[in-house]
Structures are given as structure tokens and as C-alpha cells.
């Protein structure tokens, strides 16, 4: 019987390899030394430091040679940490004055600084504590004398409690084909790097290290967010074949990288990327996205115990906007609630959260919170091409109240001499049945529309998309969903309003011709799927897309 654990898939598609457990967070030996041993312990530290520096230097060089300049810089920063006089003197003092053994001196010497970073005001700086932990664990491993085990010539899947950036960066060299992580977070640096390298990564699998203990062969299936062990040889064979197909497909898709997204008859479709954090812009640029079609801002709120300040939000938005300019960045205002809980919002538990207090409903009820976000977005609009998007709209009233708030904030900024883009567009997500029916009555006060197919499908069909039992019911091909999309697009075309799609349906090759035939101007997908969408677009002319609609709606 196969052993299967569920997690959250972050990047990549499929990996097969032998399990290797990366031990972390073990207790370091702690004892007092006598003065005659001080020299020995100081020298051991120095030697570990030299070895770590050399290993990092080598890794940096390899990344640079691969043209991974940005990733190499992460390693350069760790080298700088390793040479930090504050940390070094902390460690030396512990050995020389407190007579601590070198292992605990290193552990404690870093701990102080790690704690300071963990307590810093915003998420960016807090993340740096993981870089320090990464470096510390490298040093402790060198000190324990267990030389970095050779990974050998087998493909390896590494299982660990917490994934550190350097582990991702050195994956290729060590023949690591995937990661299985007990904790982990969608927005951690390590996750973002894994996406940039397209490395299979499954996080939030709490029982991973208890369940898989030997050197067994595992399969990481990111599509179904599962790790599978104890498979029969036939089952392995099946996965191995699937993996070969995935690899072939990747090679085939590479040729689309430098091509524009066009239909067979040359109609240009904007192909944008969905991102959840500023750090993901790199992947969008690398895959030559035409813009950001959906910047989900709720993750700024979800990763923090306190509400993100205007400054923190502004910095994050501005970074994305500047790097994408002159391409447009659609920033969606807070879409928390539903399945996305944020502890800093302190939302009460609800019986029916998807129908409850979420998204624009929270924002229009807690105007200060909304105002802070709108100020940050408007300020960022000065640095490029920002379009603001409101989620979960069900009435004209909500659009009017949001626009009034934007105008009030603009007046405020003007009086403070803070620059912003006065012509910033304001659009809405079409994802509720209300928006399908009433859109024609709203479009005079809406600059653009983006169809959120995930929620639209769930609400049109009254099917909870998070319920595994409902998966067969959750079907884009249901004619009610297709007709709803057609109605939205027809309304937009009739009133000459720009319409895009930012839900997962935009990356489904069976439905791309349908969406294009409906007249959408833009498809926004995960950065890793851009080439796939280009390939699909190339197979259909506009006439064929329109035929495709007729076939599905009659």
C-alpha cells in the first residue's frame, strides 16, 4: 500500500528521488571549557569559518556562471554576515571570557542577532533571520565534524523542518530534485527561490519526518500536492514516465520564451503574471510577462501579527511597480476572509466564510484599514503604471464608496505634496453572480474588469472549491460558468471596457481558446505557466476561438 501525505504545493510539477533527511534545530553540545582549551576552540571556530566562507564563495561563483546574479547576491550577503564584527566578537567573547565551548558560542552568538531581526517591524527584515539561521546551521555542521555528506550520483528529495535559502540555491549541484518541508511558508525566500528555479517544493507536511525515515524512493506530485512513498514498481514506472513527459514538455516550451503571445492569426493577447509578493517579480520578468495581472496583497497581511503599515505596503508595491514599469501592475485590494485568514485582522470564525465577512466587505466596514492601503497604492502609482482592483463586488454602491475614498485620499496626498498618478485606473473583479447579472449597470464607473474564475465557478455552481468531495462538481466546463463568462465579456465589449482573466482557468489549455473567443484582452497566470499559454494561443485563430465557443454553448 502506498503511503501518501498531503501538503501545499509551491513550485515545480513532479520529482522522483531518494529521501535524504536534513537534520535541523538539534541541540548543540553545551559545556564549559577550561582556559587551556580556549585556543583550541577559537581555532576550531576559525577553521569552520574559513571552510564555510570557501563553500559559500564556490556556490556564489557557480550561480554567477549560471547567470543567476540575483541569487548569487543572497550568498554574498551570507558571506558578509560571516564576516560581521558584531557577530564575530560575540562568538569570540563567549569562548574567551565565558569559557563556552565553540558550538554553543556559535549558537548563542547568532541567536542574539537572530532575535533582533525576528522582532523588527516589517516582514522583509524579519525574513533575514532565516539567512542567519541558514549560515549558523552551516557552521554547526562543519563544527560537528560530519563533513557535508556526498549526495552521490542519485537524484535526491530532501526532507526538512524548515527550508533555508542556501539549500535551494545549492540544490542543482547536489542533485536535489525536490524538497519536502514540514513547516514552510508560501512567501518565504526559500519558496520564492524554489519558484524561480522551478524546483518541486511541497510545504506544510507536518508528519513528513516521522512517516518517511529511511532512504526510500519518494514521489513528489506537486499537482495533487502529495508526497508518495512505498509505491509498487509499476506505480513508480508510471511516475517515471510522467516525469519524462514533463521534462520533454519543458524543453519544448523554452522556444516560446522570447516570443510575444499571439493567436495563430497574429492577434496580440496580453499575457501577465499573478504574484503574491514583491519578491516574485523576478520570476515574472524572467518569463517576460507583459505585466502583473494580479498582485494579491493579502499576503502582506497574512504573514504579520500586526497590520502592515502604510510604509511597509508602499515599499512593497513600489518595488513591484518600479521593476515592471512601464508595464502595468494590477494591485488588488485586500481579499482576506474566505479561506484566507490573517491573524492581524482578528476575524471571527464563521460558519460559512466564503459567503461571509471578506474582501471589500471588510474594507468598507473598516475604512481606516482600507484608507491605509489606498494611500500606499496611490503613492506607489507615481513610480510606474498602477491599476487598482476591487474584489468581491456585488453592488454599484460598493464601487461608488471605494471611488469616493480614493478621491478623498488623493486630496489628502495633494495637500501633503506627495506625488501620485491622478489617472490611476480603478477596476473590479468579476467573480460574484451579482457581477455577472449587474455588470452592464456598473461599467460607466469602472475602468477595467478582470474575471476571477476561481470564485466565479464556486459561486455560480454553489460548490465549495476547498472541499475535496466537491472536486468533480467544480467544473469550468459547466455551461453556467461558461455563459457567465460570456455575459461578462459581452457587457465589457458593448461598453468598450477592457477585460482580462486572472483566475486559474486562464492557464487551462482547454479553456484558453474559449476565453480569447469571448474577447478577453489579457490572461494573467502563474509566471511558470506563461510559455505554456503562449503555446496554446499559437494553435488557434480568432475564428477557431469563436467556433470553440459555439461548440461549447449550444
Amino acid at each position, binding site marked *: 500500500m502506498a503511503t501518501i501525505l498531503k501538503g501545499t504545493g509551491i513550485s515545480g510539477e513532479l520529482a522522483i528521488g531518494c529521501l535524504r533527511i536534513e537534520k535541523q534545530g538539534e541541540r548543540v553540545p553545551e559545556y564549559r571549557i577550561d582556559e587551556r582549551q580556549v585556543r583550541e576552540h577559537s581555532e576550531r571556530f576559525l577553521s569552520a569559518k574559513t571552510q564555510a566562507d570557501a563553500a559559500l564563495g564556490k556556490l556564489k561563483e557557480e550561480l554567477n556562471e549560471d547567470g543567476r546574479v540575483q541569487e548569487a547576491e543572497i550568498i554574498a550577503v551570507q558571506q558578509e554576515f560571516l564576516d560581521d*564584527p*558584531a*557577530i564575530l566578537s560575540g562568538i569570540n567573547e563567549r569562548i574567551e571570557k565565558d569559557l563556552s565551548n565553540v558550538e554553543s558560542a556559535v549558537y548563542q552568538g547568532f541567536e542574539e542577532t537572530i532575535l533582533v531581526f525576528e522582532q*523588527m517591524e516589517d516582514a522583509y527584515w524579519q525574513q533575514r533571520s532565516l539567512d542567519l539561521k541558514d549560515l549558523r546551521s552551516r557552521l554547526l555542521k562543519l563544527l560537528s565534524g560530519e563533513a557535508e555528506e556526498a549526495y552521490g550520483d542519485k537524484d535526491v528529495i530532501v526532507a526538512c523542518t524548515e527550508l533555508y535559502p542556501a539549500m535551494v540555491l545549492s540544490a542543482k549541484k547536489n542533485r536535489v530534485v525536490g524538497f519536502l518541508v514540514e513547516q514552510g511558508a508560501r512567501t518565504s525566500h526559500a519558496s520564492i527561490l524554489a519558484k524561480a528555479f522551478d524546483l518541486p517544493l511541497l510545504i506544510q507536511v507536518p508528519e513528513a519526518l516521522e512517516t518517511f525515515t529511511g532512504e526510500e524512493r519518494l514521489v513528489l506530485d506537486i499537482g495533487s500536492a502529495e508526497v508518495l512513498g512505498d509505491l509498487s514498481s509499476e506505480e513508480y514506472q508510471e511516475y517515471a514516465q510522467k516525469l519524462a513527459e514533463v521534462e520533454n514538455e519543458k524543453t519544448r516550451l523554452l522556444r516560446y520564451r522570447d516570443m510575444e503571445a499571439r493567436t495563430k492569426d497574429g492577434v496580440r493577447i496580453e499575457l501577465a503574471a499573478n504574484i503574491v509578493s514583491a519578491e516574485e517579480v523576478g520570476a515574472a520578468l524572467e518569463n517576460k510577462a507583459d505585466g502583473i495581472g494580479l498582485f494579491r496583497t493579502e499576503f502582506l497581511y497574512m504573514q504579520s501579527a500586526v497590520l502592515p503599515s502604510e510604509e511597509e505596503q508602499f515599499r*512593497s508595491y513600489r518595488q513591484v511597480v518600479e521593476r515592471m514599469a512601464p508595464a502595468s501592475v494590477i494591485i488588488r485590494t485586500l481579499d482576506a476572509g474566505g479561506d484566507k485568514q490573517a491573524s492581524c485582522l482578528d476575524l471571527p470564525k464563521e460558519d460559512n466564510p466564503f459567503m461571509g465577512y471578506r474582501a471589500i466587505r471588510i474594507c468598507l466596514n473598516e475604512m481606516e484599514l482600507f484608507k491605509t492601503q489606498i494611500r500606499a497604492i496611490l503613492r506607489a502609482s507615481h513610480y510606474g503604471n498602477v491599476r487598482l482592483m476591487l474584489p468581491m463586488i456585488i453592488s454599484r454602491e460598493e464601487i461608488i464608496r471605494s471611488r469616493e475614498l480614493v478621491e478623498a485620499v488623493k486630496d489628502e496626498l495633494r495637500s501633503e505634496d506627495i506625488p501620485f498618478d491622478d489617472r490611476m485606473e480603478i477596476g473590479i473583479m468579476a467573480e460574484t453572480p451579482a457581477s455577472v447579472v449587474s455588470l452592464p449597470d456598473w461599467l460607466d464607473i469602472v475602468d477595467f474588469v478582470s474575471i476571477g474564475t476561481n470564485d466565479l465557478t464556486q459561486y455560480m455552481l454553489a460548490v465549495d472549491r476547498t472541499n475535496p468531495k466537491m472536486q468533480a462538481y467544480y467544473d469550468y466546463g459547466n455551461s453556467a460558468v461558461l455563459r457567465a463568462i460570456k455575459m461578462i465579456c459581452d457587457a465589457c465589449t458593448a461598453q468598450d471596457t477592457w477585460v482580462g482573466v486572472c483566475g486559474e482557468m486562464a492557464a487551462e489549455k482547454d479553456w484558453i481558446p474559449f476565453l480569447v473567443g469571448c474577447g478577453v484582452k489579457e490572461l494573467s497566470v502563474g509566471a511558470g505557466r506563461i510559455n505554456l499559454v503562449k503555446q496554446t494561443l499559437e494553435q488557434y485563430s480568432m475564428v477557431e476561438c469563436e467556433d470553440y465557443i459555439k461548440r461549447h454553448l449550444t
Partner: protein
Amino acid sequence: MQREYTIINAIGLHARPAARFVQHCKKMGGKITVTKGEKEVDATSITGVMQLGVHAQDTIRVKVQGDNEEQELQTLDTLGEMVDDRFGEQE
């Protein structure tokens, strides 16, 4: 000798620019400190500089005590160029 600089990098003196800042100070030698608000740190300590939490448009003050005036001036001038260049980061 001391001078004030306004940091214009979009997300402030984060890891990469802080590393370049510190490398420069180490290379120039002498005793160099950075102050933001009340807090003063060793300019050759990257964790110190990062813990100042310098954001875009923040002003920092750099104090240098070197062997001679020419060297101090050189340290501050070059630093000024680096700040204007966003420490080599793109806009």
C-alpha cells in the same frame, strides 16, 4: 568628519545595498559609524547596518575617523556616489 545621506533605494538599505555599504567602509579603513535617529552602529557590521532599518528617503549620518583628512574625504565622497547610484541596484 561626518556627512548626511538620503537613501533612495526603493526598499531602503536592505541586504544587498547594506552589504555593499559595509564592504566599502571596510575597504576604506578607519573608524566609521552610521547613525539613524538615536541609534548608532559600526559601519563595518552588516547586521548593525541592517538593524537600523533604513527605509527609502530615510537620512543617515556617517562619521569617519581616519588617518588623515584626505582619506576621510575620499571615504565620504565615494559613499555619496554609491548612494546616488542606489548601490548599483536598478531603479
